[in-house]
């Protein structure tokens, strides 16, 4: 075996990094791409099904209601604010502010999840009446699963911060949690436009 020559040291390198320097950020990005692409495929299938109908929504199917979905969209967009403050506090390693904003974010993401129930019914069709209904329910249902996952992650992180001492690297995790929340909200803007507003145009 060849001998080993010391060419340098890594001892001075940091052990906690943020954003694209952190492995977890890349992993989060990977799953965002997978989930975003899945959403795109379902939306493409929704538009593919559209070709089978002369009218959209189909005859005797009312348009989706806009009131509740629009309110929920506004709430989701507003929830970006605490998410930004969570990320900012995390990057400043300000635990006091981080905990405060995590609580606000937890409430801000839990409310849209609860309202999602009425938002599903605001589609004004059932999943088992027509292919249109199936497509609409699938898209909103899939996004709900992403919403649920992020709510669990946010609530869990918040809870951990209040009940146990957390390592410094969890600041980076909190920042990545906000990163994923932006994706969840951004994805919903597209879905809202296609599924709730779209039938009035398509």
């Amino acid at each position, binding site marked *: *075996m060849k*001998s*080993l*020559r*010391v*060419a*340098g*040291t*890594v*001892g*001075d*390198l*940091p*052990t*906690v*990094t*943020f*954003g*694209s*320097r952190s*492995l977890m950020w*890349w*992993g989060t990005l*990977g799953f965002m*791409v*997978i989930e975003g*692409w*899945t959403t795109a*495929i*379902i939306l493409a*299938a929704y538009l*593919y*099904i559209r070709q*089978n*109908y002369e009218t959209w929504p*189909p005859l005797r199917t009312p348009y989706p209601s806009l009131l509740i979905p629009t309110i929920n969209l506004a709430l989701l967009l507003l929830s970006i604010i605490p998410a930004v403050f969570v990320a900012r506090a995390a*990057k*400043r*390693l300000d635990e006091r502010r981080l905990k405060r904003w995590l609580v606000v974010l937890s409430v801000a993401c839990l409310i849209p999840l609860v309202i999602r129930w009425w938002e599903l019914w605001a589609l004004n069709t059932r*999943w*088992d*009446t*027509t*292919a*249109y209904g*199936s*497509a609409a*329910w*699938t898209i909103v249902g*899939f996004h709900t699963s992403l919403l*649920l996952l992020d709510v669990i992650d946010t609530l*869990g*992180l918040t809870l*951990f911060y209040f009940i*146990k*001492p957390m*390592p*410094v*690297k*969890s600041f980076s995790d909190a920042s990545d949690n906000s990163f994923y929340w932006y994706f969840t909200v951004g994805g919903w803007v597209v879905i809202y436009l296609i599924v709730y507003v779209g039938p009035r145009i398509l």
Partner: protein
Amino acid sequence: MTGPNTNRTLPVEATVAEDDIERDARALETVWGERPGFWSWLTTVDHKTLGKRLIVTAFLMFIAGGIEAALMRAQLSRPENSLIGPDRYNQLFTTHGTTMMFLFAVPIMTAMGLYFVPLMIGARSLAFPRLNAFGYWNFVVAVVFLYVSLFVNTGPDVGWFAYVPLSGPQYSPGHRVDVWAQVVTFTEISALCGAVNVIVTAFKMRAPGMTVNRIPIFVWAQLVVAFMIVFAMPAVATGSTLMLATDRAVSMHWFNPSEGGDALLWQHVFWFFGHPEVYIIFLPALGMITPIIETFCRRKVFGYTPIVMANITTAFFAFGLWVHHMFATPIPELGQSLFTAASILIAIPTGIQIFCWLATMWISRPQLTVPILFVLGFLFTFVNGGITGVMLASVAFDKQAHDTFFVVAHLHYVLLGGGVMPLFGAFYFWFPKMTGRKLSETLGKWHFWLFVIGVNVTFFPMHILGLEGMPRRVYTYLADTGWGPLNLVASIGAATIAISVLLFVINVIVTMRRPVNAGANPWNSSGLEWSVASPPPSYNFLYAPLVESRHPLWDISVDLPVLTGFRTDRREVLVTTTFSAQPDSRHEGPTPSIWPLYLALCMGVVFIGSIFSPWFVLGGVGLSVIGLAGWGWTGSKPSGHERVSTPAAMPERA
């Protein structure tokens, strides 16, 4: 806990003393090594252990799929045979296809990457070891579910691509198709976990100095395939889990034409995955060929850059071919022409790679060991399969050959020639690294010749049978057709393949009973994986190797440059910058955990339960919350030794 040996900095340009090496190795073994016992077996997150386990499990699936194939060949060996009835035959060919594609080919190619990518890039582990364990256990759930179902007469019976309306609720009542749909779901989860792991590992954990143009070609292939998995698998997951399963379980109408659904939509979402799937199997195999040729021709590969570019180009084209599986459906003519052109075009990047290998071998004197024999077998067999692929890209010919044995011949030439032969070559090549023992060359040569002869004797006659009009997926045929003799030849070929694989298994068993004696680099190869002991230690690399060329072990004559200064009291890995691979931070890897297994079982409750009642979905999600909490809890222990770099304090390097 801070030990006396932690975070030691040695003087630069000094040679690491043997005492230091021994002390650090002992400390790292304590931190990274697996404890004996069943609990450790369940909780391990070591990429080598899980990689080997995935290879073995997937190979067992190859044998299971092979047994199914042998039973089918026995049934077809003569006309009007009554060995297997039509219902059992339907289950056999569906389970054979599903097993070979979803439970053997993709997982085993991915497994080779999960095992070797960290070793080839000089990393101590994968980026997300627990995610890797979660992926493996999901795969196990799929295996158990499919085979238990088959043995209780609920094996899927609608072909491996489960076309609707046959697979829809109207024509396939019962749970056979549900089994197929959920097996696919588990394998997708598993593949996606592996893909994210490979991408982040290859992007962020390459050894210092391993710039983008020094990445080993095998790693390039795995990286390209990981991206393909990210964009291909969601299509079939959408089709099987969100569409087909919901049509069947909760009366959705995705594929029900009477309510505005569309049967062709299934073919689109399936083949948007299904065609790239072929390249997901094929590209890693191509990645295995380059180091084998380099090693046994004693030459650096000709055309590194064209080979890498060909890999990437193939991946792009692979997403533009799916409609050539649908030429027999009413696709607009313009679309047919486009997909014909794309299907022919993809032969170009593959051709570039083949010519680069031929150029590498041309003026060398290859040492004809078993690994390179399998590469030569690949060249011969795969080129035949590739040519029939170009034939099938022509719409006029495809419409004649569609659903005949010609297609069966083509796909087996491609998959066995292009996938399995390089894979066997890779087994012989890297077996010493994984186990510390070299497989027998004599038995290996018998294995090789019987396999190549068997493949050609089995599948060449199928071209003729197909051209004569024999449809695929029939459990028998009449004597008047005259197809009997060629079918008998094909069945004899299948028996030859079975004998050859049996010889390989015997070779492995006999070799594993011998002592470890292969040494670190038995073939005098050039990659970083050969710089560590065989089998590699639990921590892979004692220090981070400094890479100064594409062939580190061939280009460095005196001593191996390394970077020291890691803590030895925890699982520390080095994170480097994405393009230039400069050291950027140290990351603490996770310890063993039961939660990946627990969460995979929760996925089992969700997806298998969903076949019977939607309430299982709610229950499974509820149980998953406990698992996520456990995973997060054990992953967030303060160590007290963290050194922070906020974005303001240390800007991103190029």
